[in-house]
């Protein structure tokens, strides 16, 4: 994601005008009754930390539990830099133990979806599984991009292939796992002692579980699920999100997606504004023409500017007669009058705090 993740962690990347990618996982946790959450992060954590705070915005500021940010740290045993997803869990065993869990739910912070993890946990319990992997049906021709599970008739996983050339099924891992904590804990600590590589869930842990005859099950998820790990997929997912009939049904009060909501006045559309097929959020001042775009909080757009098929993130200031088309504009960017950013099949990206155009430009 280059420019957008240079200074902030991927889960903190804005989505849909007023959310960040991690809001979906955190809201799912809150709505599913998951009350103790550790957020493991090691790259560019500042934005993520300030976004999450004490978790109150997601109703996660419980008396016991709540959200804890788990960052690598130095200790007497040396530096605890996370070498992989499972390694990060190993490094935080003492945090997990302190909450005495029976089950551990592993999520990744870069997917857009609504899911009730309680259903998945019930499935895990019902199957008496050691591990459960959430899977989704993907088109067979795309299957080679994912970790593919092959299951028997009872949904038990019998084979796992990471990005197979010739996929045997179309059940793709969603990167969501439930483990019985005592089992996972034993594998992680023993492998550490014996020097066996257990750094990554997909590459190491699941194959080892299968090799050892642990019961690993695939939980099928039917619903909207989107990996927004690239600029193109982020743009596409946002553009699809504009449609009020989108499968994610963001306005459904029964499964809300919460976010940190800064207080801003309502947005104002001036006499010159023309807004079509777009999403607009609090705090904006719009005097230009907005067509099929998402405009986030506190964005100012001057008269005569045209924003088309684009995402403008929060606190950006756009002058007059600016043209933005097929673009993603990072937070706090500034556009001088007459500036132009036009993408095509490859989406143009303007970074955070970037200044586009200016006095030296020929403004014609």
């Amino acid at each position, binding site marked *: 994601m280059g420019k957008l993740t240079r200074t902030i962690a991927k889960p903190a990347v804005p989505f849909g005008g007023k959310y960040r990618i991690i809001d979906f996982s955190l809201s799912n946790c809150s709505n599913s009754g998951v009350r103790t959450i550790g957020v493991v992060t090691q790259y560019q954590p500042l934005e993520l930390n300030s976004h999450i705070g004490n978790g109150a915005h997601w109703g996660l500021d419980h008396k016991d539990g709540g959200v804890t940010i788990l960052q690598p740290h130095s200790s007497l045993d040396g530096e605890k830099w996370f070498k992989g997803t499972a390694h990060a869990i190993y490094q935080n065993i003492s945090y997990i133990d302190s909450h005495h869990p029976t089950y551990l739910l592993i999520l990744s912070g870069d997917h857009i979806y609504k899911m009730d993890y309680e259903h998945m946990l019930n499935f895990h319990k019902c199957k008496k599984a050691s591990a459960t992997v959430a899977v989704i049906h993907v088109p067979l021709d795309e299957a080679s991009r994912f970790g593919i599970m092959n299951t028997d008739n009872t949904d038990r996983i019998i084979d796992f292939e990471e990005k197979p050339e010739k996929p045997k099924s179309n059940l793709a891992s969603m990167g969501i796992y439930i483990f019985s904590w005592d089992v996972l804990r034993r594998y992680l600590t023993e492998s550490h002692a014996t020097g066996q590589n257990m750094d990554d869930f997909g590459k190491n842990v699941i194959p080892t579980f299968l090799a050892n005859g642990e019961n690993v099950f695939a939980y099928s998820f039917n619903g909207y699920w989107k990996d927004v790990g690239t600029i193109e997929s982020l743009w596409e997912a946002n553009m699809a999100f504009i449609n009020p009939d989108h499968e994610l049904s*963001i306005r459904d009060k029964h499964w*809300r997606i919460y976010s940190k909501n800064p207080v801003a006045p*309502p*947005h104002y559309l001036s006499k010159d504004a023309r807004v079509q097929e*777009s999403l607009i959020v609090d705090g904006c001042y719009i005097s230009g023409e907005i067509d099929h775009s998402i405009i986030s909080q506190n964005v100012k757009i001057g008269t005569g500017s045209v924003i088309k098929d684009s995402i403008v993130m929060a606190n950006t200031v756009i002058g007059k007669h600016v043209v933005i088309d097929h673009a993603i504009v990072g937070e706090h960017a500034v556009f001088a009058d007459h500036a132009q950013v036009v993408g095509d099949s490859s989406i143009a990206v303007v970074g955070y705090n970037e200044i586009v155009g200016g006095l030296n430009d020929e403004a014609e």
Partner: protein
Amino acid sequence: MMRRNKICGILNLTESKSAIDPLTRHRPIASLPFCSRYRLIDFPLTNLTTAGVDTIGVFTHDNLRSIYDHVRSGKEWGLDSIYGGLFFFSDPRLDRRANRYSAEGDLLNYYNNIEFFDKSESEYTVVMGTRMLCAIDVQAILRHHIEQGAEVTVVYKSMENIDNDDQNTACLTIDEDGRVRGLKSSVLHDKTDHVYMNMEIYLLKTELLTKLIRNGVAENEHCNLSDLLHQAIIALPSNGFEYTGYMKNIHSVRSFYEANMDMLHDSNLLALLKGSQHIHTKVKNEAPTFYSRSSDVTDSLIANGCIIHGEVAHSVIFRNVLIEKKTVLNSSVVMQGSSIGSGAELHYVILDKNVRIEPNTKLIGTQANPIVIEKNSVISRIVEGDFTRLTNIGKSISEVDSKQSSKDFFHHY
């Protein structure tokens, strides 16, 4: 040094509201929704907390539910800390059906809870209400108070072209030294007079206030705190503090409507909401507002969570409003959760919360007399002033009705 709570805040919610009926029929002025996402109580709460006032007493005769629902722990204003907080004092003599400025007076409520002032350990108390909409720097009032050596400081706004139909507003006579010399009701003024309108914001030593309350109750327990303070600024050496920012006296449907329309001017919006302080309010999780291909929205303030297919001009729209295709909405205020059916035409209308306007309904008010539709009403097919069926209609629409020729409508309560 021991932490000292220098100023304690009093929100005096015993405010006359009958002229804002039906918007205030089931809520105090403090809970009136304003400018797409605020409530009037957000303004004094922000004024107080921005100045570091962390102990606030809310005194009311009115229904506390809507206020409590909005304010809760006061978290949004940083009032949920270990110091101070929000304290509610509702008068047990509250008569929900009376719904008017209490003849009993509110002074006894203050007297019965006078312990609050002692416990606050504050040196000064600032008293304000919610109907004088403003964004004021309370620390500046305190500095002025100390420099001028007054017993009581009262805040006023210098203005012309006042609404002299509001008998609950008083104007001050201020001499060259800024001393208060007199007080008279705004109804005694001509519309064109240049006046110093009393904004009913007072700052005085807490000790003096409690003394005034005790003495006041001994003399006449059916008195109001505001009357007591009016007497105090005449009897004691008192100074005026001139407020220069945006101000609106919300005392009638029209003034409420005008205040909302004022916010469509960027300068007013910035002065009130984003000037020397940013106004805080209860935060809601709403999706972004969606504008469809058929929408045409200009010169309007819109909150999050709306879906707009129709034409909107010069209007203020609250959260979760649905505006269907081929509607025309002009110069109107639409509160949260309302929906406007396709083909409807609304000019100069205030829709309270959760109103449903059925398709092809037509409501045409005037700038001076906007039509008010009460909370939770369903309105259908009013064509050219011919009211075929109306439910739960408030007083204002009957006023409009009385000016027009024969219509029939039904009340369903």
